């Protein structure tokens, strides 16, 4: 096959693959994961915080690499929710202090104080060591995580960019 034909084949392949990927979702415009996902995804409205409890929002941003690396978020050592990039969850808890970490990965855990009627926003981020580019190789699955608490206003805005699942956190 001539270089020109090979070139055309590769280009056609790319167009075909991308078209194929986008068709099931109804097109690129509907494939927007951010900005009011609850409306776009038809998720149930969040219920108000239960009396005498506080609410913990935990989410994970999107990153280029390491999307395949995930595990359960633990609250006081108890696994609650398997957190993939671009998703989050929330749960209501009695006022108190909680330690948030990621199961089976080296993690800098975060200690969060929760008051009644208060919401806390926690971001879980991959802390990659080594190459972060396809030409540098894939990240090995044993990467560490960092857990950070965001300020309320920004945290609320940020958490609601992702589809959120309601969970039950036990103590």
């Amino acid at each position, binding site marked *: 096959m001539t270089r020109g034909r090979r070139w055309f084949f*590769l280009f056609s392949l790319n167009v075909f693959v991308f078209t194929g990927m986008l068709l099931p979702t109804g097109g690129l415009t509907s494939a927007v994961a951010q900005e009011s996902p609850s409306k776009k995804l038809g998720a149930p409205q969040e219920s108000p915080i239960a009396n005498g409890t506080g609410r913990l929002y935990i989410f994970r941003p999107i990153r*280029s690499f390491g999307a395949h690396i995930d595990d359960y978020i633990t609250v006081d050592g108890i696994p609650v929710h398997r957190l993939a990039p*671009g998703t989050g969850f929330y749960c209501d808890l009695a006022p108190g202090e909680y330690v948030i970490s990621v199961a089976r990965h080296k993690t800098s855990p975060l200690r969060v104080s929760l008051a009644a009627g208060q919401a806390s926003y926690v971001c879980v981020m991959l802390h990659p060591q*080594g190459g972060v580019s396809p030409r540098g190789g894939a990240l090995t699955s*044993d990467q560490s995580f960092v857990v950070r608490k965001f300020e309320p206003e920004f945290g609320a805005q940020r958490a609601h960019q992702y589809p959120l699942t309601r969970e039950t956190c036990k103590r």
Partner: protein
Amino acid sequence: MKPARIATLCLLALLMMSRVTLAQAQGPWWTWSTISGNWGGYRQSLADDGVVVSGSTIVDLLGNVSGPVRAFAPANASLLAIDADLEKLLDLKGLLVHTEFVANGGQNLSTKSIGNLLQVATAFAQPGYYLGQMFVQQKLLSDKVTLQMGRMTTANNFASLPAFADYVSFAVNPIPINLTSNTIYFTSLPAVQWAAVGTIAPTDWLAFAVGVYDTNLPSGLPFASRHGVDFSFQGSGGPMEVAQLTYTLNRGSDDIGLPGTYYLGGFYSGAAYSSLSHDDTRKGNYGFYLEGQQMIYRRGGLSSDVGLTPWISIAYTPQQSINQLPLLVMAGAVYHGLIPGRSDDNSAVGFYYGKISTSVPSGSGEKVVELDYTWWATPWLGITPDLQYVLTPSGRSSSRNAAVIGAQFQILF
């Protein structure tokens, strides 16, 4: 043609897999973290048992829209990786086996139309399919020590600043291009060498890595590597040693300061190198690099990851008689979450200056300005419109500047 066909079949298989699992996974398809999802729970089960599968493909669709030689060149780089966690599989604490398969296709716009040295598309590599990295990794002393041994690419451990991944140009992504183009053995995928790398991280903010790489010429050149399975060990004169000191600032959970990452590294290669101006060879090559990125403005208060991070990189390989690009100075800035409500997107601007060796007749320096915006349409699809302007390609005053526009697509499997 064969590599392209194989890559096609792989992509179609993954596409079909994703459709099959459409009904099995939770949530709409576009909210999954990868395009192929969780394989109906099988992927997570495998991971829990110790086998983690990952993949990505990047497609660069770039065109030179200026000058008499206008051209368009697509390029594709795909990567499939399998991790076997032997701690889970065989109860061997801290031991992991990592294997990669790589497929590349397409054309190099820089050679096809522009004639420049700071290659514009990171997705382009010698077309073909390859066995990529294949190494064993052992972590010791509560992960303070990491030992890796096997077939490895240098960019996996050295000189790849996180901010570099936000650019389309191969001048900067994954490592300063002059480290690769001058030495050959300072590799990025699909080129790999036999290697051993040790990393000591006594604290969360400091790490020191040392690597020894074989300098087997066929193994280091993708087209000569027999699809990455040329396992011959004979070096071309002597091994290459690389060392890097890494300093990370404010990266912990309790740190409230602005985060930064800094690399200081150097290498020595004992291999023989061809002279640029004579027919002889010269044994040995060495160089240094200094790279740093530091967030200077943050929106959203303490701990937020939204804000402006400038970076700088200097890579210097002094021997002008054998190094075509002895000096590469690059600087830029990445704004993470510039548009409100789009906190995962990246805006990036960069300027690259490559000084041409004095041994190259009529060569001075090549400069590139790059502008990118990476829009994460879904967690598994990043689309990056890209603009590059190449000034004095190859450093020749007679060469015409080139404007390159296009886009990069990143898909995570």
